[in-house]
């Protein structure tokens, strides 16, 4: 199993966290508008940083703020869902006539 797969499955397993996680965000799946929207919406709960990995894939470093660590799994998961919803909505805009 890929290292990224293991990492993301681990992040979704419990509230225990060891430092930031880096989400790989392929631009054809997650457009920049979706990433910006997620950063705006979740900055209060997480430390978020965009990373340019240099291979055309953006990275998003995510670390749930210590004040919310008891709820880290839910916050991390809802961030993933927010990114996906934003990606679908911006995809609609891309495909609109």
């Amino acid at each position: 199993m890929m290292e990224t797969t293991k990492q993301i499955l681990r992040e979704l397993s419990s509230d225990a966290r060891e430092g930031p996680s880096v989400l790989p965000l392929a631009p054809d799946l997650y457009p920049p508008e979706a990433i910006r929207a997620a950063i705006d919406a979740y900055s209060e709960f997480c430390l978020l940083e965009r990373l340019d990995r240099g291979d055309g894939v953006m990275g998003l470093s995510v670390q749930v703020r210590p004040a919310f660590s008891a709820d880290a799994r839910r916050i991390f998961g809802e961030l993933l869902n927010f990114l996906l919803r934003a990606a679908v909505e911006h995809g609609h805009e891309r495909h609109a006539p």
Partner: protein
Amino acid sequence: MVRHGSAPESMAIVEGRVAIEIDTAIYGLDAILRAGYKFTDRCYVFIDRPAKRSDRVVVFLAHKTDAASLEADVGEFCNELLDQQVRQSLAREFGGIRTLIVAQAFSEGNLLDTQRDDGDYQTDPQGTLQRR
């Protein structure tokens, strides 16, 4: 996509979380995104593209509250994926006709044949009085 159990490298369920590898030659990205979107009410969903396989994506599902129901969710997700793909194919094939039907339904005149409703019977633009 491969069924659960037949190819462990393509799908792995571990403690209420699952990673499903999907062939994008069979299911388009839009269908995958939309299927994932529909599951955000009950699961946490993330989609990744493996670094060395541009023809594959990996969908991660983790149930929000009830890890035991994840296996059923995986089956439903596969059905939803197929449903979304068929919708996309039908939209591509018949989207133009659907648009025309809706436009005609909300239009006062005849969009396809303007002479049919507006023509004068004396000038007989359709030639209905002509012998065949």
